[in-house]
Structure formats: C-alpha cells, structure tokens
C-alpha cells in the first residue's frame, strides 16, 4: 500500500532524466567528452587513415622536418611521426581503462563491505587503504616487473593493487552518509523493501560521484602507464607508443623538438580530456551545494 502510494507520484521518464542530467553538466564535461571521443575514434581507425605503416623504417629519411610527405616529419629511424602518434595511444588507453574498471569494481565492493560492517573488519580494511594509498604505484610496478617481467598482466595488477583504494574510501563514505539520509528514513517508514531502497536510492546516488572519481583516476593512470613504458617497464620497443616515442626522442630533442612535442601533447590531451569529464561530472551547475 505504502509503496503503491509512493509510486503514484509521477515518475520522471528515462528521457527526461537524461535531459536533466545533461542540462546540469558543466562545460568541461562536453569539451572533455568531445576531445576524448575524437581521440578514441582516431586510435580505432588509425590503421586505415594513417599515411604510412608506423613500423616502416627508412634510414634515408631519418629526422626529416615536417613536409608535405611527412606532415609531422620522421623519427630517428625514418618512421613517419604522424602515423606513430595516431596509433601510439592504443596500449596506454587500454591498460588504463582496464585498470580503472577493475579498481572501481574492487574498490566499491570493499568500500561497501567496510561501511556496512564497521568494527574490526572496517578498521583492518581502512588501515590497509591508508597504507596502500601512500605507496607510489610506480614502486609496486617496479617490484612486480622485477618478479614477473613486463607485460599486460603485470601492469594491470600493479596499478590495481593501489588503484582500488580511493574508490573504497569513497564508497565507504557514501554508504555511511546515504544510510543516514532523510529520504532513506522516509522510504523505510513508507515500508519500501530493502532492494527497492538500494536500487532506487542508494545506487543512483553513488554512480555519479564514483564515475567522476573514475574519470579523474583514469587521467592519472594514463600518465602512470606512460611513465612505466617510458622507463622500459611497460610497452616493449618495436610497438608504437606515445611514452616510448618520448623516451626515444630524448637524444634528438634539440635537433627535432617536434619528436618530443607531438607524442607528449597526445598524452597531455588524453589525460586533460578525461580529467575534464570527471570534473564536469563532479559539479552540478543547477544546484548550489556542489558536491
């Protein structure tokens, strides 16, 4: 009876929900999404649109400045820089995305457990978070690479070991605060079932903050994965990768600054665009409360 009364209120349709969500977004959300989608699309269709084979060497065309033939010039092995920049983000973006998804799932799960159980389990889990959050993921990655050697699995594992901690903290905080909200009380008093409350109130209210942090962490992971590749602990040399290209370009930076500028700009733009998405999700332009 109570639930029926509750449901008689006109429920907003899915479409109006989406429209409302979009109207409340900050400009950074749209600009960030646009840039990021363009980057993703370019990375996907790179093999068909790139003017040259990114691995094709031509020692006669080493370190050529930008020209009509090679729009961004060539690197120290005569490979076309534009083709390499177009394809060079695939590995980094994939690894960072997988890491973030894993971190969100594990972190949210542990956070909710921690927030619901309190007591000793909560204490041990949160102290683990305190400890892990202060260890740089690069150090863990170095340690794991020393044991297992470089590779997809090693990178994902080493970044996830630390990566889940912010989500656990966030999910725990959200669990605690949502449980004490008035509207949850109200729903309980109205006799709503536990499942109804969780699906109707708890989950919708946790998605946006968690998604916002996920995008912000995604930007950070992009840079970290690149850093490991730069050190030679990530992507291995024959592949075209932005950070690897930067590492290769160190010796030629003075002669050909574009070798450093182009791949670095690509990483920077990817990281900035996802940071903007996260920032745009985080603030609500129509409400004064902010977070």
């Amino acid at each position, binding site marked *: 009876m109570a639930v029926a009364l509750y449901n008689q209120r006109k429920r907003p349709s899915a479409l109006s929900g989406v429209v409302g969500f979009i109207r409340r977004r900050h400009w950074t959300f749209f600009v960030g999404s646009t840039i990021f989608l363009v980057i993703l699309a370019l990375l996907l269709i790179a093999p068909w649109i790139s003017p040259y084979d990114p691995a094709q060497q031509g020692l006669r065309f080493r370190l050529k400045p930008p020209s009509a033939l090679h729009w961004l010039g060539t690197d120290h092995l005569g490979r076309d820089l534009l083709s390499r920049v177009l394809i060079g983000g695939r590995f980094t973006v994939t690894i960072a995305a997988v890491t973030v998804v894993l971190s969100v799932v594990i972190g949210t799960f542990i956070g909710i457990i921690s927030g619901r159980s309190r007591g000793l389990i909560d204490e041990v889990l949160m*102290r683990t978070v305190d400890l892990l959050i*202060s260890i*740089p993921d*690069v150090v863990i990655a170095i340690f794991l690479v*020393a*044991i297992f050697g470089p590779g997809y699995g090693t990178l994902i594992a080493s970044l996830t070991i630390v990566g889940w901690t912010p989500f656990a903290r966030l999910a725990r905080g959200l669990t605690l605060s949502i449980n004490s909200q008035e509207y949850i009380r109200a729903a309980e008093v109205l006799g709503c079932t536990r499942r109804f409350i969780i699906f109707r109130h708890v989950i919708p209210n946790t998605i946006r903050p968690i998604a916002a942090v996920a995008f912000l962490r995604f930007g950070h992971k992009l840079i970290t994965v*690149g*850093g490991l590749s730069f*050190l030679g602990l990530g992507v291995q040399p024959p592949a075209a990768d932005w950070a690897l290209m930067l590492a290769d370009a160190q010796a030629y930076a003075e002669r050909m600054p574009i070798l450093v500028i182009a791949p670095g700009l690509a990483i920077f733009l990817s*990281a900035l665009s996802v940071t903007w998405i996260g920032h745009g999700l985080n603030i609500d332009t129509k409400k004064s409360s902010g977070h």
Partner: protein
Amino acid sequence: MWIQALRRSLILCLMLAIVSVIAFLLPYMTGGDPARTILFSRMRDTALDPHAVEALRVSLGLDRPLYVQYFTWLWNAVRGDLGFSFTSSQPVAAELIHALGVSITLALTALAIAVIVALPLGTLAAMRPGGRLDNFTTLMIQTFVATPEYWFAPMSALVFALYLGWLPSAGWDSWRSLVLPALTLTLRPLAYFTQVTRAAMTDVLRAPYITAARSRGLGMHGTVMRHGIRNGSLPVVTFFALWLAGLLGGSVVVEVIFAIPGMGRLLYDAVINRDIPMLQGGFVCIVALSILINTLADALYVLINPAMRGNHDH
C-alpha cells in the same frame, strides 16, 4: 585515544610484517632457485657449474628451512644489515641512506614550492567562488594534473638548459641542478594542495565562527588571516605527508630523466640489473617510511587541531 592509538599501531605492525614476508620471498618468487639467480646476475651465464651453485647455497644458508632464513634476514634487517648489493658490492643500507638523502631533499624542495604557492592561491580562490581567479585556478589544477612529468621534464630541459643555458639538464652537484627536477615534481602536488586548500577554505568560510568574527566587525582579510588559514590549512598536513611518502621512490621517472642518484633511480637500476638485496631493502625501506610518515602526520594533525582531541570517532 590511547586504546585507539595502540590498536592502530598493532595493525600497522602486522602490515609491516606482511610486507617484510613479501620482500623476503622476492628471490623465490622470481622463479627458480635464488642461488642460481644470484650467480646468474654475477656471471651473466646460463650454464652454471652445479658445484658453485651448491657452494653458494650453503654459504648463504639457503639450505636451511625457510622460516629460519626469514627470521635471520629480519633480525639482520632490523639491525640495519640488509646485505650487499650484487652490482656495486656495497652494503645495501649505506646506499639506501645516501639515496634517501637525495630523494628527501628533492621531495621537500618540490613540496615546499607546492605549499608556498598552493596555500595563498587556494585561499584567494575560495574567497570569491566562481570569480576570475577561481576559474583560472581550477584550469591550472587540471592542466598540472594532466601534464606527464616525462613530457614536462624534457621540454623544460630543452628550453632552460639547451636554448637558454641557464640550468644544467642533468646531474646532481649544486642547487642549480635541483631547480628543474623540483619544478617538474611540484606540478602535481601543487595542483592537489591548491584543490584541497580551496575546498577546506570554502567550508571554513561558511562556518559559524567566521560569521561571528565578521559580525564583530573584523574585516574579511583579518578574518581569513586569523581564523581561516589555520583551519583551512589543516588538510594540507595530511596531504603533505602522503606526498612526501609518495615521492620517495615515486619520483623514479624524474630521477631517471635528470640522472639524480635518488631512491627511485636506485630501485630502477636494481630492477634492470636484477639486484635482489637492493630491491628487498628498497621496498621494505619505502614501505616502512611511508607508514612512519603517515602515522606522524596523523599525530601532528591531532596536535594542531584542537577539535580532534577527545574525538574518538576519527
């Protein structure tokens, strides 16, 4: 509060014990026999003499039960004896202490710059939310967070070392070689400190005691100076500790680019050369230090924040 502290330190000790077990087992996890790994890293030869392997195993005590080896290793580690580096044959502890000094200097310089810029900037941004300075600050934070250090470092070296010739592009000899690495490392903490200060300040400026101070006739700037800064900078203490721990070893990319003999560089070289005692020592050292620094920061936070004393729920 004392029970809380005791419980906390017990859990931390337990974690340190787990970390030490992981570090101890490192040579066993790399696959195969540690004696062979050690000989391989010395000789660079896969066809090893079985007698030499056996002799080394006995001389290192690797034929004893694992738990005996662990406690021997732990006892030595506690006394500061972490063994000898495979590559340089120097004591690991001595090399770690030297590298730690370098990394701490670098990290403290970078963090000092970050705090000096972030506290005023975050405060000013919070005083007029949505204003021009606030928008600029937000954009600056996002730009700094998205800048990879392995991009900023070569670019700044290109401009200030190669084109202008003001600063050295690598090495570690005078204060001049500290400038570029510190600037590179300061970007991200600077961004986070500013963000944290701005958020904390926004909350503080809404607090009743600020309204009270204002209604007593104290000007906006006086209020911020007397009540705001002290309360708004509290979270920065925690973040400072977090970043200090994070930069010891976490600055590996910058240390490699600028050829700085710090902690990150040491770990990186240890991986490249498969120098196991150095890796074990470095790992335990970094984890122990980050635990120590964060525990101290928590204590400091309680000390400077009167509201925290007697608050058992934190």
